[in-house]
């Protein structure tokens, strides 16, 4: 039963119905199961572990825009405009966490650099990726409770007494190659200066890179996120170190391990396999 979609009970009931010989009913059930798996775009029955985390952002997207959602949830503030446009044209939205064993974090004075690799091989060949966003969580309050997509007012003074807010520049690069012992070859995809003091998700448009990787026109070497803390020159070491932890680009920078699954970087792709409507249903479309 673990491998098939048809529950054991149903399977037995059909075989015992006497409508066909046992051999024929088994082959019929097998064909029907393959049909179901193909319909869902699956290769085998999913058996997710209890640890499998469902990003809150995906739950919000489902609530907000699916054909049968209740449309009650508001658009997450952190949803990039490009993502919303993309979702209105996509019939499949996928989310990915990066391979932690392949990350490379480096923290120099004034700059934190993190390399991510996302395994996108599960995207079927017939699915055209039209857009993608890389979401990074920025927590202004250290060790806070698990984040959700509504932004929180940071009423504290930021880092243990540091003035609230801070100015970071976040650059997102596509990595072309990693020459031995040298800086990776990379091109800038998106950049942003973040200066308010709210804890929130930042969404970056990485569509050009992801659509090349998934269409086979380019190799996936991953992304590089560079966080500049320009103000750090005047700060002392410990203060500067704590300030550079705001942008949650690595587990090592996130103290509360329980909330890490919801705070870790998330890559979301928007695609269409040519079958049917888009996921995003606006009220007018439904009517």
């Amino acid at each position, binding site marked *: *039963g673990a491998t098939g*979609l*048809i*529950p054991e009970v*149903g399977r037995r009931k059909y075989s015992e119905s006497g409508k066909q010989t046992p051999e024929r009913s088994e082959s019929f059930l097998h064909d029907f199961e393959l049909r179901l798996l193909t*319909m*869902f*775009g*699956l*290769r*085998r*029955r*999913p*058996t*997710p*572990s209890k640890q*499998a985390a*469902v*990003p809150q952002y*995906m*739950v919000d*997207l*489902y*609530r907000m*825009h*699916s*054909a*049968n*959602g209740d449309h009650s949830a508001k658009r997450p503030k952190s949803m990039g405009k490009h993502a919303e446009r993309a979702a209105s044209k996509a*019939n*499949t*939205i*996928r*989310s*990915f966490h990066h391979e932690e064993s392949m990350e490379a974090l480096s923290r120099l004075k004034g700059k934190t650099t993190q390399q991510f690799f996302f395994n996108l091989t*599960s995207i079927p060949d017939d699915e055209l990726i039209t857009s993608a966003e890389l979401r990074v969580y920025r927590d202004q309050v250290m060790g806070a409770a698990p984040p959700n997509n509504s932004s929180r007012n940071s009423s504290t003074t930021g880092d243990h007494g540091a003035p609230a807010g801070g100015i970071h520049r976040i650059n997102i690069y596509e990595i072309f190659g990693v020459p031995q012992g040298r800086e990776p070859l990379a091109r800038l995809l998106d950049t942003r200066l973040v200066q308010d003091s709210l804890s929130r998700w930042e969404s970056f448009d990485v569509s050009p890179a992801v659509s090349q990787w998934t269409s086979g026109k380019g190799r996936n070497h991953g992304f590089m996120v560079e966080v500049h803390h320009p103000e750090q020159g005047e700060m002392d070491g410990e203060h500067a170190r704590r300030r550079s932890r705001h942008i949650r680009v690595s587990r090592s920078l996130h103290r509360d391990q329980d909330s890490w699954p919801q705070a870790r970087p998330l890559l979301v792709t928007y695609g269409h396999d040519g*079958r*049917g*409507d*888009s*996921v995003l*249903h606006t009220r007018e479309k439904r009517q």
Partner: protein
Amino acid sequence: AALRKQRRKHQHKASCKRHALYVDFSDVGWNEWIVAPPGYHAFYCQGECPFPLADHLNSTNHAIVQTLVNSVNSNIPRACCVPTDLSPISLLYLDEYEKVILKNYQDMVVEGCGCR
């Protein structure tokens, strides 16, 4: 009159129409990997298609008159009660690689039935 009414009522009950069917994913054990919704109203079509001429015989007035003159070919199969209008649903689920996917699936809800 009472008998005729009773017969018409019975015939009405058995004629082709849409019937309620709620698919509960936990019933079939799919709630392990489908995050939302917990289930959905799929509906299904069932019933007789008693029309003298099945819809698929192109029942225009001309065709009716011509058929009366030439009589109906009894070899033509009777019409079936099938969905005539379907709509999609979206599923949020974990695939076999534990990746989270929000996908729209076509033709999952029966909105209307007809004889074809």
